[in-house]
């Protein structure tokens, strides 16, 4: 609670500050007949850290730009706290925004940049100076107020951009790949800092990224987007453990895909045949006997079979090692099944674990619970 008691001194310190809820209904945006966003419906809870994740061209940035008000939807509605904002210009939406390239005003000092939103809101000068000083403090930049953006490093510019987006106490903060231009080390530090800020401020964060690891680390919920549509929404662990389709399974983390044919159903379990081998997977779907399905598994959930006892809860398949790569903490094996499907297995490296050689014929196994139908 040390953090919380110190909050009163911070610029966003009103106790009553609560994140805005955002609701998108059937949102569409097309450019010259081509849909960038094609019917997105989402309910974002107050105080949530929500990430829009997707490859470039998936419509995630366009969705964010429509929430900010920089682009008008071709169809559909955006409501903030239940009130439609489609006809509200961006300067009246009161939303904090951090841009990919930070968009700091090059002709203004750091302090003037941070004071900019306060000046637009006619905050008196003395109050402005106090809030700017507090925002600099919050972002660990005291003493930098008099510098120009070009005199700062990328990480410092990013902090100034965040300070500027938060200083006027918005209840919603939008971030468009804010860490994209930074190196890995700095990115990881700032990811933690974003989480800390989110926890301290309690406002709603909507974050756009194409980096699945960043999305998994930071978000309460992730919206995976593809081709202008929502592919799946869920908590990071849900998306990783239960991807609902092949796109999500391959975009978040790595997956092995095995084509199979449904041979039998027992309770919530489906038994499918893949190249003469019977594999099991849990499902709530009603699948017909003979239906063609794809089974997916994560490479780090596969084991070499001699490590596991025979059981109904385990799938086994015979493979040949085609490539063996040592990558520090893990060994990575490329495998080939009898019917030619390529698989990847990741094993934690250790002096006690025997390295497999290329050409070894082995049996691998994984838990039925880790088998997903996509």
């Amino acid at each position, binding site marked *: 609670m040390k953090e919380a008691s110190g909050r009163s001194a911070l610029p966003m310190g009103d106790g009553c500050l609560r994140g805005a809820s955002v609701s998108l209904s059937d949102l569409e945006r097309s450019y010259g007949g081509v849909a960038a966003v094609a019917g997105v419906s989402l309910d974002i809870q107050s105080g949530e850290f929500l990430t829009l994740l997707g490859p470039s061209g998936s419509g995630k940035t366009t969705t964010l730009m429509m929430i*900010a*008000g*920089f682009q008008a939807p071709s169809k559909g509605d955006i409501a903030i706290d239940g009130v439609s904002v489609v006809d509200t*210009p*961006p*300067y*009246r*939406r*009161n*939303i*904090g*925004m951090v*841009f*990919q*390239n*930070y*968009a*700091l*005003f*090059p*002709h203004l000092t750091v302090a003037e940049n941070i004071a*900019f*939103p306060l000046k*637009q*809101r006619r905050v008196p000068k003395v109050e402005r100076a106090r809030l700017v000083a507090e925002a600099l403090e919050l972002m660990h930049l005291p003493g930098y107020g008099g510098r120009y*953006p*070009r005199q700062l490093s990328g990480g410092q*510019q990013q902090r100034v951009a965040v300070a*500027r*987006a938060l200083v*006027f106490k918005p209840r919603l903060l939008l971030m468009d790949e804010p860490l994209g231009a930074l190196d890995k080390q700095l990115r990881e530090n700032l990811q933690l800092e974003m989480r800390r800020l989110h926890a301290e401020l309690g406002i709603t964060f909507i974050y756009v990224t194409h980096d699945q690891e960043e999305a998994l680390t930071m978000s309460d919920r992730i919206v995976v987007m593809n081709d202008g549509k929502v592919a799946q929404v869920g908590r990071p662990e849900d998306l990783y453990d239960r991807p609902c389709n092949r796109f999500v399974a391959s975009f978040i983390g790595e997956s092995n895909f095995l084509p199979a044919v449904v041979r039998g159903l027992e309770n919530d379990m489906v038994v499918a045949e893949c190249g003469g081998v019977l594999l099991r997977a849990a499902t709530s779907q009603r699948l017909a006997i003979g239906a063609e399905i794809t089974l997916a598994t994560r490479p780090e959930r596969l084991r070499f079979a001699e490590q596991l006892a025979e059981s109904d809860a385990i799938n086994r398949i015979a493979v040949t090692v085609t490539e063996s790569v040592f990558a520090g903490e893990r060994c990575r094996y490329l495998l080939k099944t009898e019917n030619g499907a390529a698989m990847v297995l990741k094993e934690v490296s250790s002096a006690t674990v025997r390295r497999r050689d290329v050409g070894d014929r082995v049996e691998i196994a994984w838990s039925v619970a880790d088998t997903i139908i996509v």
Partner: protein
Amino acid sequence: MSDSSMTPSMRILGGRREWSRWRRDIPWLTPLLLAAPLLLYMAVFYAIPVVSMLLRSLNDPKWSLDHYAALPSDVVFLKVLWITLSTSFIVTLATLMLAYPVALALSRARSTAPLILIVVLLPFWTSVLVRTYAWMVLLGRHGMINEALMALGIIEQPLRLLNTTLATEIAMVHILLPYMILPIANALRQIDPSLALASSGLGATPWGTFRQVTFPLSMPGVAAGMLLVFVLALGFYITPAMVGGSRDITLSMLIAQEVDQLHWGYAATLSTLLLAVALGLVAIAQLLPGVGNTFRTSK
């Protein structure tokens, strides 16, 4: 190996080797040679005449500073200098006012940009003389403007438009517009478009964004355009001579008059002064914040 024993092809190869050694040892040799024809041209047809003109102001008819010493008490000169400077100043301001919105439109236009550019550059492709005659046709006592105003019943007697200071200013603004529009449009185009979005997102109205972000960031273009237009306006001759009033004599007209009367020393003195004012302005502009490196983008 003696020189006489070399075959011609060996001599060429040896020459090539020597040439590449020179290029390595003297890095500025290639740029110098590339620029040499122009440098030579400029020396013969520009530098030498300018220097001899400067000398005329000092040594005609004998070596002295008499021509310069006489200027502060020369009433005609002072009046002409004042007319030249004030006309240039008014023309520069009027050009800025008319050019900025066009530059803004040009920098924001996508599909219509080439069209706007053609319209902007059209004056460039017509000679100053032709354009000045066109203004005479428009502004004359029985010109199109007077005829139109009388036909509409706004005026009863034709207005005196031609051969006034106003006529000079109108024609000069028209001729100088592209020199203002292009640098400003260029500066505007270089502004990162996300800055305007950021400003809007942070609560600035469209006018607030223009006043606090777009306009300040376009200052290098504004300064460059104003400098260019002012300096060019200082040396205008044909336009004020043809459409201006009989009492509106500019420095270049005075210079021409003096040359006609073979007062070489006095004409040279005036020319030197005109050059000095222009160079002085360029020097001052270089020192201004905003024209230098103050407004680099943060990237």
